[in-house]
């Protein structure tokens, strides 16, 4: 994925055409929204000449400055500056309108609010080339889970939202209005999280828990079909990134994940093979894991161990 603007500063176009010719599959300044609407229009207009999508981290920084937790009860309860939902929604709305005006394909990264999802749904209903994604932590955690222990593994950007937002997002991934399940995997060293909330780094790791969480919470209870799971975790992301679909056929390259839906895990620091342990889901007991992975014909995970 290439940067949308030079140095991800939101000030001037990156050499997008060069990057397309060298294989870049999408463009984003993820971590920041492009703050100037005029600059974003230029970016999307420019990208529209290529068959590529712009992935937007939506955040109006003048509204989220100093914000470290969802606005409202959580911010009041814990005494910190809020990161309001409309700080995200305003930019989603802006970028949808820019997609309409430029024709550029737009993908909303890590959507976190009910209202934001409504905006995406309305855009889709109009036939605009707009898609979106959600993370496991925004599907299965909310700001009520942040207690007065100030567990910094629950600090992320965008922040955990209200319970009603979480429920709307679950509905969205079930009914097809959310296209992709992504982790927004953000590994951090222990000292970057083992500190006061307001100065802790944003983000949680997600790679090793995303599948178990989806299986435990949605697929095994029968709320989501296996084929829908494959759609949101594999088929749709590949389509978005302009990657060839995986086929199971003689002579094709093996890109496969084998899943044991019955294997149970305790999410402890010891569970993770990642160097980083900053998981928002520590302490959970989950059912169903990937046991083996084949990438381009090579086994990279063998019976649950990274090869």
């Amino acid at each position, binding site marked *: 994925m290439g940067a949308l603007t030079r140095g991800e500063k939101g000030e001037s176009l990156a050499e997008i055409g060069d990057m397309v010719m060298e294989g870049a599959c999408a463009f984003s300044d993820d971590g920041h929204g492009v703050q100037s609407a005029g600059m974003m229009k230029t970016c999307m207009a420019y990208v529209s000449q290529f068959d590529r999508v712009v992935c937007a981290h939506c955040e109006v920084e003048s509204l989220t400055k100093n914000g470290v937790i969802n606005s409202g009860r959580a911010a009041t*309860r*814990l005494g910190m500056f809020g990161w309001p939902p409309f700080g995200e929604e305003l930019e989603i709305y802006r970028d949808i309108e820019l997609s309409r005006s430029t024709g550029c394909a737009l993908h909303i990264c890590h959507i976190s609010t009910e209202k934001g999802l409504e905006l995406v749904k309305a855009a889709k209903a109009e036939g605009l080339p707009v898609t979106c994604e959600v993370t496991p932590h925004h599907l299965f955690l909310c700001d009520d889970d942040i207690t*007065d*222990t100030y567990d910094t593994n629950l600090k992320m950007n965008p922040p955990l939202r209200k319970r009603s937002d979480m429920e709307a997002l679950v509905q969205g991934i079930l009914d097809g209005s959310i296209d992709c399940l992504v982790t927004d995997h953000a590994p951090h060293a222990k*000292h970057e999280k*083992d500190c006061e*909330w307001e100065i802790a780094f944003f983000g949680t790791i997600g790679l090793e828990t995303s599948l178990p969480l989806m299986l435990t919470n949605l697929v095994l209870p029968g709320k989501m079909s296996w084929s829908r799971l494959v759609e949101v975790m594999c088929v749709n992301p590949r389509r978005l990134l302009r990657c060839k679909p995986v086929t199971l056929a003689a002579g094709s390259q093996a890109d496969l994940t084998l899943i044991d839906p019955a294997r149970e895990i305790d999410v402890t620091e010891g569970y993770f093979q990642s160097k980083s342990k900053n998981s928002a889901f520590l302490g959970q007991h989950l059912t169903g894991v990937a046991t083996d992975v084949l990438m381009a014909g090579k086994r990279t995970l063998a019976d649950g161990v990274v090869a």
Partner: protein
Amino acid sequence: MLSVRHLIDTTSLTADDITQILDTAKSFDPIVNARTIKKVPALRGRTIVNLFLEPSTRTLKSFELAEKRLSADSISMGGATSSVVKGESLADTIQTIDAMNVDMFVVRARLAGTPQKITENTDAIVINGGDGKHQHPTQAMLDLYTIREHFGHLDGLKVAIVGDLAHSRVCGSLAPALKTMGADVTLVAPPTFQVGDPSWFGCNQTNHLDDVLEDMDVVYMLRVQLERMEGAAIPSRREYNRLYGLSLEREARMKPNAIICHPGPMNRGMEIDAEVADCARSRILNQVNAGVLTRMAEMYLLMGGED
């Protein structure tokens, strides 16, 4: 015995805890305010560290005097002189001090949740001396003591907390503590200073001081934190004084027996006019006096009371 091991917030305190603190403080009153030798041996041999990571004068001196009057051995260290400014993590700082075998930390911090984090790195007892915009429980106890001294009770009283609520740890502790004791609390502030979710405190919130003033038993004026006004939330000191300042004219409309409190330091001429600060209703110096008594009570009770 209190129901809590540490004093981190007032939300965790029961009405019985608060009553114990106020009654114990009252028992210290003749010692501190009437005797020539203002000292008891209650905490002789106990070691207390006043860790003030944010500058403070009145809270620190109040704690230091309370410690001396209980015969504890105490040292005070500040953020500016400690290794904290050299980039040492909070955990390392605490573990280093803890290795010298101390019994109690009194903590003042710029960041919300710091005292809670400290409890995770020491076996010592922790008292929150104010953390960011979160809570300042020892301030709340001295306020309740002062109010109870005047009225003889707390239940049923009508209290307005007026001012910069959004940046106020004083409000964060005082409002819940008053509610626990059966008082009725109204929050008053311009919309740009209001808390995100007053229902968390179980309070009403208004921007009309003049509508509620005449109904109040206690008018608690907050300091406008000029140093914390990140983004100008009010246009000028003069306009704030006109709309929300406690003037002589407003003071004259208060109930006959109503009192005025302020946590200090005051901005005379801004949230409170000079003459009002010194008028007969003012309990501002009583609050300062009560600070030593209630802090003695808190340290004494947390260290095991009679033991």
